[in-house]
């Protein structure tokens, strides 16, 4: 049923349709509306049987999920940003133990400086953890991905993280076609754990493993992710058969036929990029876009196929590895190894900075004219950076940079205001 609904609410109600048995909650913006809604459903008895546990930290949230999952319960939690980092030890542990926990990540920047707005730094910080990471482009996809995530996680005994852009998706109200319980029930079979804490059949889980087997255990985890490369598209296809909707999968192309310049990105920014691509197409430029839904496992072959024929690949990403550059860019570069194309990396939208259609249009123009540097920071205020660099050069105790920048920007604004008045 099509409803005007907030992204968080759509996810919460869809997760409830998946009949989670244990849900852990520790609040962090912008994930809060999801767990609030699930908590209310459990309290009202509309989601039952389900244990909703308010814990004292994200570390506990993931740890409770680990215990519940190992005891055979379908387990769900949600977090963002600092919360993900606070639970990171348990995030790795859940993957290492092969526990099919599903977690929503309401993508948000990581401090310092503290910032509650959207980027993908949090997801990138755990890209090597062994979790499957799926990125939603829209609220519809965010909701749908959760149903697929439980199916995928439990089939493969691998935890799955559904990444949705904080605020941009979580707090946006738009039309979402909500699934019926019967559809979800038919799509998502009962959870049959591969390993379970059962007094009638005792096993030890989480034993010490030395060099004699550690590499094999890790390699098995890698193989399960490779299996996921097969299962993600087939589960998405099955989902499409039942619902008539294209949600999930590995990658999705938009107007890439005959495209010379192809943009690659993750998440909700794909919408704005498509608008910019449409405008450039109207102006006669051969541009297209490839959205990556499955960031881990990374679908190298599918990416290479989707980018076949492109002369220029522009990766736009909302995170970067400080001292190196784009994280996604490096993966794309490896996938395109040997291909006859140039790759440009664009860091954009950090800490919630709006990625505007106008900026993207200019960027695409620069790309088409081969004027992009290998690494570009979109809409970076070079003046503000230069002024802080100058302060640092002239004064030893120049003070905290973030605060200096804010003061500087405030001064600039007031000068502009004065000039205007």
């Amino acid at each position: 049923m099509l409803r005007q609904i907030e992204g968080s609410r759509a996810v919460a109600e869809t997760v409830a349709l998946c009949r989670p048995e244990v849900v852990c909650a520790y609040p962090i913006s912008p994930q809060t509306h999801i767990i609030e809604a699930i908590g209310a459903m459990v309290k009202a008895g509309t989601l039952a049987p389900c244990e909703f546990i308010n814990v004292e930290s994200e570390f506990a949230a993931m740890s409770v999920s680990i215990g519940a999952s190992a005891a055979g319960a379908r387990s769900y939690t949600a977090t963002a940003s600092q919360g993900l980092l606070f639970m990171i030890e348990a995030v790795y542990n859940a993957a290492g133990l092969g526990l099919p926990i599903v977690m929503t990540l309401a993508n948000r920047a990581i401090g310092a400086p503290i910032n509650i707005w959207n980027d993908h730094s949090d997801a990138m910080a755990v890209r090597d953890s062994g979790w499957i990471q799926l990125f939603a482009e829209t609220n519809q996809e965010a909701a749908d991905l959760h149903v697929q995530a439980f199916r995928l996680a439990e089939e493969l005994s691998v935890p799955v993280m559904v990444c949705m852009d904080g605020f941009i998706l979580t707090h946006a109200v738009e039309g979402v076609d909500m699934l019926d319980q019967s559809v979800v029930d038919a799509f998502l079979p009962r959870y049959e754990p591969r390993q379970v804490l059962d007094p009638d059949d005792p096993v030890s889980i989480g034993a010490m493993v030395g060099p004699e087997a550690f590499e094999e255990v890790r390699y098995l985890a890698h193989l399960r992710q490779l299996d996921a490369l097969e299962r993600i598209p087939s589960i998405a296809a099955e989902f499409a058969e039942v619902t008539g909707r294209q949600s999930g999968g590995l990658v999705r192309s938009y107007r890439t036929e005959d495209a010379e310049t192809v943009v690659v990105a993750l998440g909700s920014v794909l919408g704005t990029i498509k608008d910019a691509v449409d405008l450039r197409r109207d102006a006669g430029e051969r541009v297209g876009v490839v959205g990556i839904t499955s960031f881990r496992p990374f679908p190298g072959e599918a990416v290479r196929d989707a980018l076949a024929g492109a002369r220029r690949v522009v990766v736009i990403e909302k995170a970067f590895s400080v001292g190196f550059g784009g994280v996604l860019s490096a993966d794309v570069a490896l996938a395109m190894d040997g291909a006859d194309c140039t790759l440009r990396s664009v860091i954009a939208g950090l800490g919630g900075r709006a990625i505007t259609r106008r900026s993207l249009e200019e960027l695409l123009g620069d790309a088409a004219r081969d004027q992009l540097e290998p690494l570009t920071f979109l809409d970076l205020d070079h003046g503000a950076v230069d002024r802080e660099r100058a302060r640092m050069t002239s004064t030893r105790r120049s003070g905290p940079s973030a605060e200096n920048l804010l003061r500087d920007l405030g001064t600039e604004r007031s000068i502009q205001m004065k000039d205007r008045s």
Partner: protein
Amino acid sequence: MTSQPVRFYQVGSFAVGNRLLDDDARTVQSDSNRTNSIDSGHRACQGCGEALGARYALDAAMRASQGQLVAVNATGCLEVFSTPYPETSWRIPWLHSLFGNAPAVATGVAAAMRVKGRTDVRVVAQAGDGGTVDIGFGCLSGMFERNDDVLFICYDNEGYMNTGVQRSAATPPAARTATTDVVGPEPGNVFGQGKNLPRIAMAHDIPYVATATVADLHDLEQKVERAMEIRGARYLHVLVPCPLGWGSASNDTIHVARLAKETGLFPVFEAENGVVTAVSKIRHLAPVEDYLSIQRRYAHLFGKHPRTDIVARIQAIADQNIARYGLLGDESEDETKWVEA
């Protein structure tokens, strides 16, 4: 008939042999049908107090739950010595996740059992003092506050023994560890405020808190059984001497544990809903020197240049415990339950 003839040891300690008791008052360990929850063949050091404590506690918990038990284990000696791949000593379902999250993992197991209608399955979480008072403290307090149906057992050997005897918040004053060297004017660990987890647990008003030592295994079993009669968050703090870390003789583990109690340094008591309900009285009051002098971690307090000043400060701690918990007096008041049974 599950009992077997049990040898009687007279050790001058008032310990009573099972032989003198009725069948139903005998220890779980004396029962040939005991579970052997943690089986022999593990790699604990000779004289390990933790292995002994865990064996008694878990077998008692298994009997109390009619075999429907799941154990969650923090990282530490117990986890390492019991499960080097491909071996495991655990005959019960057992899960190890991380160092600092055993209470939360146990909460998750208990929640899963509740949601599946398996409330007959009981959950025990266990950790050393590091996994309890230090790195696991946040999760433990959360588990207490929510009153989750978990029995948490801390095997306290007063330091990070698995990593090579470093200081924890449970390390006593003046004790030598690898990170509290015996140099300078105040050798060994500092005289800090201490971090008394049983009292912190009581401050959460959870239904049951108890302390025990491996010197009185009847008492330990009885406390586990009492804990298993109760639903909600329960905390059992067991003092388990570590011959390696304490520098005590392997065959002195029970003796050292008994002296910890008999000096007043380790009060043995029970509390329900935040109120002390029973204390184990000191039977033969001993000065702290008796306890300290048989452990090499305190060797710097004795010998050529004895530090009587430091020993006096430790004695003051024992005296404070004796006064606070009323550890002196007629023992029949508090500790005759199993003898009468």
